[in-house]
């Protein structure tokens, strides 16, 4: 009997739906907990990630195996990025009104985010490869991975830094922005999208459509500018 139970458990753990199932379960649990408590450290992406990692470690499943079983979720990340064009278009009038503030903020705050990343990494004694991996941390992960690789960093680790950055931004960003008196949805969206990319944008969409639209705009502008300019700047500086 116990042999049969072990075989059944084995079959469940090895089923291609197992990773997908625990991801869905963890996400719903995280969302319910977050909605009940509204406690910032229970940020849904962070909490789901922790729960999923816990289950995987308990069951002895490695990341490669997990990633294969959630490919049907990952594949929708592309179309979801494309879908950000819709809030962007719906808020076009407001974006046009604020064209100069947007461009100025992009150039100044975008450069600051990148410069601070490498500055602190150097200050805290991270090595060159880590510094190059940390440089593109404020942009959405596909761009960050490309850019990190071009600069001699580690692409997969860059994606991890991108996510951590996004989660920290989504946790602390909204409350801190309110604290220093940033109340306009456009400014809150710009700040979240520019520095915390997709996770920040997901958070911004919760605040409202205009915040989400500006966040999506800032994320894509920052991504494009980083992809084109950062390798150039590093090549000139080296």
């Amino acid at each position, binding site marked *: 009997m116990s042999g049969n139970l072990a075989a059944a458990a084995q079959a469940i753990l090895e089923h291609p739906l197992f990773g997908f199932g625990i*991801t869905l379960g963890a996400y719903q649990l995280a969302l319910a907990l977050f909605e009940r408590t509204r406690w910032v450290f229970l940020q*849904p*992406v962070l909490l*789901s*990630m922790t729960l999923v990692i816990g289950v995987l*470690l308990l069951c002895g499943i490695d990341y*490669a195996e997990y990633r294969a079983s959630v490919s049907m*979720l990952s594949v929708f*990340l*592309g*179309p*979801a*990025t*494309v*879908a*950000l*064009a*819709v*809030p962007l*278009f719906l808020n076009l009038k407001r974006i046009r009104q*604020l064209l*100069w*503030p947007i461009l100025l*903020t992009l150039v*100044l*705050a975008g450069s*600051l985010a990148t410069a*601070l*990343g490498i500055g*602190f*990494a150097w200050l*805290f004694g*991270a090595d060159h490869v*880590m510094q190059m991996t*940390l440089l593109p*941390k404020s942009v*959405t992960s596909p761009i960050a991975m490309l850019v990190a690789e071009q600069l001699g960093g580690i692409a997969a*680790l860059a*994606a*991890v830094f991108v*996510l951590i*950055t996004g989660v*920290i931004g989504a946790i602390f960003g909204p409350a801190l*922005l309110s604290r*220093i008196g940033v109340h*306009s949805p*456009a*400014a809150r969206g*710009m*700040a*979240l999208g*520019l*520095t915390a990319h*997709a996770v920040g944008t*997901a958070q911004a969409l919760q605040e409202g459509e205009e915040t*989400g639209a500006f966040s999506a705009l*800032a994320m*894509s502008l920052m991504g*494009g500018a980083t992809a*084109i300019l950062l390798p150039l700047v590093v090549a000139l500086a080296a």
Partner: protein
Amino acid sequence: MLLRGISWLVLFQLLGTGLNVLLLPMLPGPIIGMLLLFAFLLLRGEVAAPISEAAGSLLRYLPLLLVPPAVGVMAYAEAIAADFWALAGTLVLSLLLSLLFAGWLMQKLIDRQQRRKERQA
């Protein structure tokens, strides 16, 4: 409706992937796809109901879609542990400072534009 909208989004993403390989290796396919859809919406002048429905549904689940890449942290636990304080300090400090600066600057610029408009009126 939902299926038709998702088909459009997938079509734009695939076009973006094609252009990424052909012309723009520095921009990822989904970002090019987003720009293409944006241009398409500008030409049409409105968001058709199927696209609006599909975009709304996908964006509602954006946090869920971000969970699998986030779990990737576990694959790099050792590299992260080796440099933990340097990495944590860098990520937290640079993010918070630049986020607050971006929000503050944008708010100031918006307020200034508002005041200028009021003065003109």
